């Protein structure tokens, strides 16, 4: 029993390390790609590491109360939760995390949970822009949750299960089995919602530097910020893995390394897609963003659900 727990812990740790490092490098390299669009060279790929080290290494930190402390912790918990309850690479014990005991609803809950924790922490900070950012964030989240939920419902209806592992399993056997192709409307609704979820343009209303200088984390600094950055990496990784699992057939192969490589390629492409849109468009206003999600994506989502129910 004990050894099983230890093994699980060890595997989880490895899985976390892999996703953390991968996500950090992904963020770094994506920054370079975006820099290319802007006509410049861009930061080194390992820049996110240095930033995190620096932030943890700051000498001073100011707290605005208990919730302020807990905000980043909740956020990190949200990120970890999202990540830990789904399989990263299908078919390998080392990377299946706790997917046996979690399902889609839990993951969706964790996506919310982090945001809420952050909202509480930011609210405590006392900076007027933080609550503004929080209210924008929550409003937008509610909006993009709708198409996302519809897409999820559609998939659930399609496969009759809430377990991510099973959903991934059902997509095996070639690209034609991926949800993206078997249930394209759900994919479109989900990928549009993903744009909102990843807080890139045009849905970057939460941090919008020109409007509410970076919103909720305005007052976050030093180790708090370091924690947020760590979470940002893990959470980003988790979201991409989730979408890969849901729509793009997950990642699997008989060799672990190849499977990981497939995961890397797929998530990279998903992230690239977000950035291709992000670099091309300006930012929506909050109400425009809400209006957007409640429009086309929701309709597509409803269509997806209807198609699956009949």
């Amino acid at each position, binding site marked *: 029993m004990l050894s099983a727990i230890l093994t699980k812990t060890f595997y989880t740790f490895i899985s976390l390390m892999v996703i953390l490092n991968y996500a950090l490098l992904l963020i770094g390299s994506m920054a370079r790609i975006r820099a*290319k*669009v802007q006509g*410049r060279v861009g930061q080194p790929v390992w820049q996110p590491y240095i930033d995190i080290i620096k932030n943890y290494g700051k000498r001073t930190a100011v707290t605005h109360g208990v919730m302020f402390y807990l905000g980043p912790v909740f956020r990190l918990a949200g990120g970890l939760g999202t990540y830990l309850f789904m399989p990263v690479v299908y078919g390998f014990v080392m990377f299946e995390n706790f997917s046996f005991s979690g399902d889609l609803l839990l993951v969706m809950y964790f996506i919310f949970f982090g945001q809420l924790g952050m909202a509480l922490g930011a609210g405590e900070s006392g900076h007027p822009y933080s609550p503004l950012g929080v209210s924008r964030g929550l409003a937008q989240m509610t909006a993009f949750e709708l198409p996302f939920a519809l897409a999820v419902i559609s998939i659930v209806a399609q496969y009759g299960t809430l377990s991510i592992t099973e959903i991934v399993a059902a997509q095996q056997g070639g690209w034609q089995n991926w949800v993206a192709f078997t249930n394209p409307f759900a994919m479109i609704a989900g990928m549009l919602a993903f744009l909102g979820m990843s807080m890139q343009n045009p849905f970057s209303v939460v941090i919008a530097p020109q409007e509410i200088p970076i919103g909720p984390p305005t007052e976050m600094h030093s180790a708090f910020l370091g924690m947020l950055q760590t979470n940002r990496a893990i959470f980003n990784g988790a979201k991409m893995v989730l979408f890969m699992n849901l729509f793009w057939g997950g990642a699997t192969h008989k060799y672990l390394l190849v499977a990981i490589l497939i995961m890397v390629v797929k998530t990279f492409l998903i992230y690239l897609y977000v950035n291709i849109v992000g670099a091309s468009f300006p930012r929506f206003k909050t109400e425009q963003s809400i209006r957007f999600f409640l429009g086309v994506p929701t309709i597509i989502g409803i269509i997806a659900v209807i198609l699956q129910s009949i």
Partner: protein
Amino acid sequence: MSLKDLVAPFMVWGRALQKPYTQKNPIITRPGADRYRGFHVNDIHKCVGCGTCEEICQNEAIDLVPVDGIETKHGDSGLRPKIDYGRCCWCALCVDICPTSSLGMSNEYIWIDSNPEVFRFIPGAENKTWDNSKKGYRRGEGYDLLEGQRVPMPMLSFEESQKTFIEMVQGFSREQALREADRCVSCGLCIATCPAHMDVPGYINAIRNDDMEEGLRIVYEANPLPASCGRVCSHACEDVCVMKHKGDALSIRWLKRYIVDRIYKGDYEKILSTGEAKNGKKVAIIGSGPGGLAAAYYLSLLGYEVTVYDSNEKAGGMIRYGIPEYRLPYEQVDKDIDYIKSLGVKIVQNTKIGEDLDFMELYNNNNAVFFSTGLKDPYGLDIPGEEFPGVTSGLSLLDDVTIGKTPDLGKSVVVVGGGNVAMDAARTSRRLNCEVTILYRRRIEDMPADVEEIHESQEEGCIIETQAIPLRIVKGDKTRLKLYWGRAEMVTDPKGGRPRPVLIEGSEEVIECDTVIPAIGQQADYSFLPEEIVNNIKFNRGMVEVNEYKQTGDLKIFAGGDIVNFKKDAISAIANGHSAAKGIDLYLNQL
């Protein structure tokens, strides 16, 4: 919303396929442009420390500080600009206005330090990496904030001038004077060089402000003979004027003259201070030349009772008798002297000390004696034939003309010498309708006479033979005399002195002429001094030795003018007179 609006934004990704705009290693690959206004460079050997850069700097970023290895000398203050980069705004007005064009800017622009105190430096004197930079901002062609050209002085044409004794230089009009005064940068380098240390920027500023009275006051502070000096001063100041580096020096002398010309003689009393109350002490002055008159003026301002003894019919000494009228009209000399007289200075004319009056009588009856008797005895040529009639001297010619005699010069004249007296003699002869040849031992650039004097005499038709050494004079056939002279070559002095003329053996030429006028210098005559005084006073090569207050070995006796200084010009004599007046005041107050 058209489809284009949805698709077009993605075209930004086209940029990702192109070369980035980013400059690689910009610090190295992108030096400042050729004209970039970076850090200052200064050629400190060209710079004269005039401070014009400090004057124009609106940030007060420039200080003038002494620099090791740069000496203070005439025309160079020995100071160099030190720039505070905590103030500078890199506008380069200092570069634009620098009269010597020594200041410039390199195209270097990176200076970083964590100590704020280090951002001050003397360009050119501290080894900086950009010192030898050829690139960077320099004042370009066709753009100049200062005017390098003088306002031309209206003058009689040379055709006219060689026929008449009317004053040749006509003086500035108001507009011309304002324009000329406007060129001054008020650096004050000239003050040190002027023997009398006149406040030149001060009175030029007064001209600019059109305040002649103030100008006159400033002038009289250091020079009581401005009408004369404004015409015939040797203007050492103009040699060191910073504007000379841009082209022409400022016409300082003419501007001084302009001030005096603009004020009527009768108004002097209202404008100038008449000095302190009389203190009852008496001072005798021998010689009414510029030295004597200056001493008389300042002593009388200090309240002394001054009597000037002079051997001539009229006061003025050399400035009246040694300078021809076309350069210095007599009424201008009178203007100066009359004002000095009006202060209560007594001038006793036609009294030669030693003959008409005994020196000891003066010595005993006065609290102090000042003498500036000048150089009166001309040197002879020291060649055979000197004693022939028709051989006269420059000074006696000028003397004669002044007192109204018409000397008998014949048709052609040879003047020997290259000083101002020689030029005056030559040009006076020219005005008496003679053909004039000037013989000079050295080259034309060695001539001690003023450049414009030489130029003008040439223009008026005097022929100048240089490197010519007179050999002998014999009676002529058609003319009265024949002057034989030989060519000289310049031999460089191994010790580094100026080159010496050495006769080329066998070269001999002859000029037929009626008169030969040697004007090769004069010496002093101390015969009026009694034995016991001569013993007290020290002499050195014909000159009286004095201390800084012009006091001789006999404490009661002061001396000045050509007999004590080497410059031998009017302004030095005036300065001597002024110093002596101070000295006498000090001496008498100590008693």
